């Protein structure tokens, strides 16, 4: 043991200074990768332990939301369904939307709920909101199972486009992370920001094409509509899941993806800039 750590001595030397170097940070992030999984594991464990209905809740929430949206938009408002059963149209959009909404809510509170960690131990703070986002993938997978069940029920078979889903999931992750990092950092600085997040989420459900297809938006407004990065993500999911003759509005999709990437970069940058003062202000 003794020899073990003396050999380590030569390998690890760090310098702590005001405005510490970027390189060191990313190396630390790699060194603490296990903590990242542990925190995600904790969040998942606690979520399913704490609520008696646990997994049932994860099933019920998307199902009920889907039911309401189908009735309101599909049955009453008679929105076009692009030749697929309306529940599948809704559910294909709810997969990324719910993931985004839950991640955003979770990530924005994550730093505050982990105050004791931040003020008592060091690790790259990026781990906290990121692990929260990743832990939401479990709910995402449960929703995925519901989608499969729906597809079996409606005897609806996916096309080869389905294999592009992992890439789209990754994009949804970037969108959730970008916004989540940014808002979580803002939440530490301005504590009343937490009142804004539920509003963004609620508002977003209606301005994003969750309950309806984005094809109902007039052609000339489509590009403007795609300024909402979730529009591109949702359209991508629909394109992959619904297959057949679902078309994607390419310029809008590309614009959305560019915005997601910009949001992601900005989120990390903002987070990194404010991170150094977290322990002092939290």
């Amino acid at each position, binding site marked *: 043991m003794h020899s073990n*750590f003396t050999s380590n001595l030569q390998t690890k*030397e760090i310098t*702590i*200074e005001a405005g510490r170097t970027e390189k060191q940070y990313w190396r630390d992030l790699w060194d603490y990768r296990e*903590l990242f999984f542990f925190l995600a594991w904790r969040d998942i464990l606690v979520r399913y332990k*704490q609520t008696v209905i646990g997994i049932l809740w994860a099933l019920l929430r998307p199902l009920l939301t889907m039911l309401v949206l189908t009735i309101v938009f599909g049955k009453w408002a008679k929105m076009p369904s692009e030749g697929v059963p309306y529940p599948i149209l809704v559910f294909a959009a709810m997969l990324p939307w719910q993931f985004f909404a839950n991640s955003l809510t979770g990530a924005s509170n994550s730093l505050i709920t982990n105050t004791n960690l931040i003020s*008592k*131990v*060091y690790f790259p703070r990026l781990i906290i909101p990121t692990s929260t986002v990743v832990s939401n993938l479990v709910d995402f997978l449960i929703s995925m199972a519901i989608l499969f069940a729906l597809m079996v029920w409606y005897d609806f078979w996916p096309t080869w486009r389905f294999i592009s889903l992992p890439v789209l999931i990754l994009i949804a992750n970037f969108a959730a992370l970008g916004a989540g990092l940014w808002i979580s950092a803002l939440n530490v600085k301005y*504590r009343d920001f937490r009142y804004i997040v539920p509003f963004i989420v609620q508002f977003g459900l209606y301005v994003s094409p969750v309950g309806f297809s984005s094809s109902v938006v007039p052609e000339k407004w489509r590009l403007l509509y795609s300024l909402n990065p979730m529009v591109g993500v949702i359209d991508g999911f629909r394109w992959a899941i619904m297959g057949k003759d679902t078309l994607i509005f390419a310029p809008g999709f590309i614009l959305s993806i560019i915005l997601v990437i910009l949001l992601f970069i900005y989120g990390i940058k903002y987070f990194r800039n404010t991170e150094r003062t977290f322990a002092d202000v939290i």
Partner: protein
Amino acid sequence: MPDTIIQVDNLGKKYLIQHQTRERYQALRDVLSKNAVTFAKHVIRPLTREQKEDRQEEFWALKGVNFEVQQGDVIGVIGRNGAGKSTLLKLISRITEPSTGRIRIKGRVASLLEVGTGFHPELSGRENIFLNGAILGMRKAEIKRKFDEIVAFAEVEKFLDTPVKRYSSGMYVRLAFAVAAHLEPEILLVDEVLAVGDEAFQKKCLGKMSEVAHEGRTVLYVSHNMGAINNLCQKAIVLGKGQIIHHGKAGDAIRFYLRNLNEHHMEEEQTGVVSFREDNTKPIQLLKIGLKSNSSDEFRSVFEYQDTPLVHMSFDLRESNPDYYAVIFIQDIYGHMIFFTADDDLKASSLTKLDPGKYCYQAQLPSHLFKPGQYYLTVSLTKKHKTAGPIDRHDSILTFHITDNKSNRSVKNGYRKIAIVAPEIPWELI
């Protein structure tokens, strides 16, 4: 030749203190409204220059700190509350960033500023060992390897799969410390965490600490317990107002610290009483502490060997809590703890059933016990089942003297130098 493992150059940490607002964080609402007001002023009177509101004040928690630590050193860090001890550990452990200067570190650092950081009440003991281990910087494989050892040290075998919210506070603290005790960093930073748990467990922790020290690990240890510093550390740093005021052998540093405290307390020394400014953020707070004798009603700091000193402590209880209790202890100038007493020694603490309000405690110290000399009294209002520090603690807040010009013993110079106390022991032939 020993290796320099930590090198600290011109280290400083500045905090901005916001006046008026007590919170450290801001509300967006306030920022927006303030900006709106400024904007409105500009619109109404565009030519007048805005007077800058001076609401922020700089405060240097640490300034110009330089020192070196060699590999294998066990260094005590001592100083009064607010001297910068915790800030120093937070900087070395990278929890917060320095404002000036630099620290160079060779090796893995683990900080133990609190026991049970990140414990989740819903998770089982087993799950918490892994979680807490990872938070403290252990690898999964490392935790697995030491798992049995940790469980044995904590003595919680039977409750491994019970959520820790069902643990007794003793078990909780034992488990938390056990995880921390099995860290194998090259550098260990410890902040007063040993002051939790029962006495037997504290002994076990101190034992583990000295074991760590003998393994050649480098330890920085913050404590108010001069006895522990004296036992564990070869060297010590004394911090005062954010600067190093003494650096040397542990024994010398302790004496320096206590002498320095004494000079700080010149004022109180004459009166034997100290008052505190009210701080509403504390759920229970000491307002005034003083010493009286049973013969007069005035505060004083000089007592005869035969006197019975009475400690009067006024406090404000703002939130009732059945877990609160009060503690005082007395140390001599060498840091020996003469005795330690809590208000629940003899019966349940009176604080357990008090409604909020202002009260005064009286603790009667023994007569015929202290040998002539100088003593320091520490008082603490604290809470059972705690994992962090006490709520309101004041180290060596009162200094008092015991004199003896009258008794037979004094005339004969009957106080042995090496003895710590001088109780009156009747001798009789039977």
